[in-house]
């Protein structure tokens, strides 16, 4: 198929879109995560804003062709700030019938489906649970379809390289990527460089993948595609000048911990045990040894946190990272860190629960666990990150509070934040305010539990310091000397001072602000964590419709900002969208006696903007 020169010149200029959502879906072994990540990288380099959402099964390689083995990667990119990975895809790339079956219900009406008909064999249709071929009945009638034999075209493109059939077929994701790059005018150069690096030891595979990529791109150039199937332009987003990179929440939180330790002038020691979706934090820090980071892959979750507490006891910054089930195992040790008043950062990358739950899916259902989940009166600050980029600042804040108040701090992320990527304007460490730790060193009048009168933090005396030898432990301590004490009045006093120390942090954190809208009015939508983007866009759209709606988003879950009660009281209605059954809502009701209402989604998937917008609209209707 060729396009004549005359047709080319008379063709209208490429249509311009503000943003687009593409979902790449295929078998776990089809390389969809790589395809999506590379598309995102190329998109970032074009200057579009973007947000990504990898959505993959817990099984490493589920049986091929099955619906439960479908892996997907969604990217939302645009000429404006996009904030979420998008509600419904404009384009669905389905590499087999199962991918089509799982993902089609979510495609926008009138959206485009790109399918590899080479994978639509009778066997694959049956595995996906299709009685009839969806390409032949009216399943796709609402959509524009691009039915291509990608498998065959890939095999033909790389035929001259004499690979095995299996190796050749594995290049079909690059063929598909090539086509999508053409469609949105993305550059191939960075991906070609990446392929050369990735397959440095197998140059024939590098060549095959690059050939497939180019072939897919060339197909787009030469095929007669029209309408929204044609080449499209998305202009760069206008952003602040600076140096940029893309970053996932997992990278961002890892960097934040390392930079936080530097600002505190401490060595970072991460004790951790692999668990989905938190392992990436351990992976990242384990390969940053050249920056002096110490990592310890412990024998279990308990040893992980205990080693981190041991490191803090000895004068390093102890950090441990896990997900809900692992955090549960760490509970007793958290109590020890609270009782001995040692700094510690505990990262919880939340996933669907309870028990093993949904290991690779996202949820926000560990808020109770974070705030309340320990034996005894065991208060601990809890901080939640809102976006992948925000994970960096949240991690630094967690470190700052841990060392300033001599306390463990719980830092909440989730599976969506950990895996999602967005643009990051790289900050300069030299511009950040350091908060160096000063260890106790003077034996004169030394008491291990002597407190700073303002922060109530005890002094931090580390082994190796002459004259400060002392013993600490989990048994209740005398208020002054720290020696074992079973005295009733002392226990009351100690429990209260541990509580007051944490509550006092409210004086040290910013007042709660309004992200969008007025600071009083009809409806406040208040959230925490990774729901930020969806809430923000929903409130923005509601306001564009003239509705009196505001948004507030909590960074500090415990203690809560000191003005929060006042703020909530200035709105007639309060709506709390959460990916749980109402945990923040319960906390707000308990603390402020406010009639907060919930919007609760517990599906292992992030909120769609439309879901929150609908909830806002229905509340505004009932109130008017």
């Amino acid at each position, binding site marked *: 198929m060729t396009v004549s020169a005359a047709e080319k010149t008379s063709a209208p200029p490429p249509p311009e879109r503000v943003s687009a959502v593409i979902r790449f879906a295929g078998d776990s072994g089809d390389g969809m995560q790589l395809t999506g990540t590379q598309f995102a990288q190329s998109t*970032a*380099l074009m200057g579009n804003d973007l947000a990504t959402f990898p959505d993959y099964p817990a099984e490493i390689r589920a049986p091929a062709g099955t619906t439960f083995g479908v892996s997907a990667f969604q990217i939302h990119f645009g000429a404006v700030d996009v904030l979420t990975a998008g509600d419904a895809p404009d384009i669905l790339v389905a590499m087999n019938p199962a991918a089509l079956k799982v993902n089609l219900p979510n495609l926008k009406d009138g959206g485009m489906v790109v399918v590899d008909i080479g994978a639509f064999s009778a066997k694959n249709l049956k595995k996906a649970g299709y009685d009839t071929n969806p390409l032949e009945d009216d399943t796709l009638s609402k959509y524009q379809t691009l039915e291509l034999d990608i498998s065959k075209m890939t095999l033909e493109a790389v035929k001259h390289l004499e690979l095995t059939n299996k190796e050749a077929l594995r290049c079909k994701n690059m063929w598909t990527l090539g086509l999508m790059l053409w469609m949105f005018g993305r550059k191939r150069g*960075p991906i070609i460089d990446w392929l050369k690096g990735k397959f440095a030891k197998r140059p024939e595979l590098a060549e095959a993948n690059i050939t497939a990529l180019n072939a897919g791109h060339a197909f787009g150039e030469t095929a007669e595609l029209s309408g929204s199937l044609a080449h499209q332009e998305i202009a760069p987003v206008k*952003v*602040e*000048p*600076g*140096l940029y*990179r893309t970053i996932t929440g997992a990278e961002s939180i890892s960097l934040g911990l*390392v*930079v936080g330790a*530097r600002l505190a002038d401490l*060595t970072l*020691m991460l*004790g951790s045990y692999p668990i989905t979706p938190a392992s990436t934090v351990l992976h990242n820090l384990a390969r*940053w*040894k*050249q*920056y*002096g*980071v*110490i990592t*310890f892959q412990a*024998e*279990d979750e*308990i*040893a992980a946190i*205990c*080693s*981190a*507490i*041991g*490191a*803090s*006891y*000895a*004068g*390093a910054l*102890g950090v441990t990272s896990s997900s809900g089930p692992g955090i549960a195992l760490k509970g*007793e*040790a958290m109590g*020890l860190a609270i009782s*001995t008043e040692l700094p510690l950062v505990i990262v919880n990358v939340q996933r669907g629960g309870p028990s093993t739950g949904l290991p690779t899916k996202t949820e926000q259902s560990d808020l109770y666990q974070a705030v309340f989940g320990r034996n005894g009166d065991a208060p601990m600050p809890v901080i939640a990150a809102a976006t992948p980029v925000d994970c960096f600042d949240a991690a630094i804040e967690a470190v700052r509070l841990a060392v300033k108040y001599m306390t463990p701090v719980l830092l909440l992320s989730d599976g969506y934040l950990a895996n999602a990527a967005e643009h990051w304007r*790289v*900050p300069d*460490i030299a511009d950040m305010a350091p908060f160096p730790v000063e260890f106790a060193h003077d034996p004169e009048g030394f008491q291990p539990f002597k407190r700073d009168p303002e922060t109530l933090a005890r002094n931090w005396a580390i*082994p*190796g*310091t*002459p*004259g*400060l*030898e*002392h*013993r*600490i*432990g*989990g*048994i209740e301590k005398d208020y002054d000397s720290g020696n*074992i004490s079973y005295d009733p009045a002392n226990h009351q006093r100690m429990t209260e001072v541990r509580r007051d120390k944490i509550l006092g942090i409210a004086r040290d954190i910013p007042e709660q602000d309004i992200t969008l809208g007025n600071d009083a009015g009809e409806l406040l939508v208040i959230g925490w964590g990774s729901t930020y983007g969806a809430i923000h866009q929903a409130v923005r759209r509601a306001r564009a419709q003239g509705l009196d709606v505001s948004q507030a988003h909590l960074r500090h879950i415990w203690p809560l900002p000191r003005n929060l009660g006042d703020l909530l009281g200035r709105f007639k209605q309060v709506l709390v969208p959460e990916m749980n059954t109402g945990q923040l809502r319960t906390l707000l009701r308990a603390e402020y006696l406010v009639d907060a209402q919930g919007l609760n989604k517990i599906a292992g998937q992030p909120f769609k903007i439309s879901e929150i917008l609908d909830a806002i609209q229905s509340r505004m209707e009932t109130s008017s």
Partner: protein
Amino acid sequence: MTEHVAPAKLKPLDYASDQEVRWCPGCGDYAILRAVQRVLADNAVDTANTVFISGIGCSSRFPYYLSTYGFHTIHGRAPAFATGIKLANPELEVWLITGDGDGLSIGGNHLLHVLRRNLDVQIMLFNNEIYGLTKGQYSPTSRPGTHSPTSPLGSVERPVSPCSFALGAGGQFIARQVDIHKNLPAVLNRARGFRGAAFVEIFQNCLVYNDGVFDSFTQKKTAADHQLQLEHGEPMIFGAAQDKGLRVKPGSFELEVVALGENGITESDILVHDETNRALASQLVTLRMPEFPVILGVIYCEPAASYERAVLDQIDSARTAGGAPELQDLLQAGRTWTVT
């Protein structure tokens, strides 16, 4: 000419803290505390640079009674705390105090891993074959038939042998001693000198819940005939008359007790202890009364690289190889672009 003034010789009590010791009168723990204080004094150990870490149980109150740094942690997890401490500051001298319940029941997992990793720490496992602090339940080292509140008809469980466990876990230093034995400080001194995980099982009498459980080999009238105190390079001879010894049973891969002077057996037939011989150690830790004496002293000692050293060396080499990069480089690693 410089005048050297010898420092005043330190006494065990110089290492006592100001805290009142709260073990039951007559507990074996007192003897162990005194032995440890003796070792610290003999070596003029720097209290500022020394940390005693413990879990939960009677034995785990130990750190409170010493004038060093001390950390009384949570049940069974002392090895994990010790690992973090040594990674953060490898120069600290770290002692770990545990018991048969703390170390082999709730904390069995951590004991396995601290031994296999060979962290540089002295591990003292006080074995009294009973749960003391929770009031007398049977423990993982209790003998079959032990009557206790949770085994009123007698325990049906098979006990674990701490030294077999430690050797099987990959421990490179395995020793055993009796709480009241005069050789306890010497064994602890050897453990202290070992750069790695030095495991010492101490038979400790609990006079409230399991009194006399070790009497068959610890009492004056039984000790000589039922204890074999090992000496590296010396024949393994025991008995009040020094007339019994261990040899390899002819035609088999096991040890037997023989009487010197009987059937033409002389000292030259007796096995000489070689503490670097792992195969020998694996036999010695399995020997049980009444057929065999209880083996005491340093059973196995074969130095190997310590864990924290290996970890920190790797970090040092990574720093050197990477040219000690700036943290800012890490922030802007990978594909970046500039917006003007």
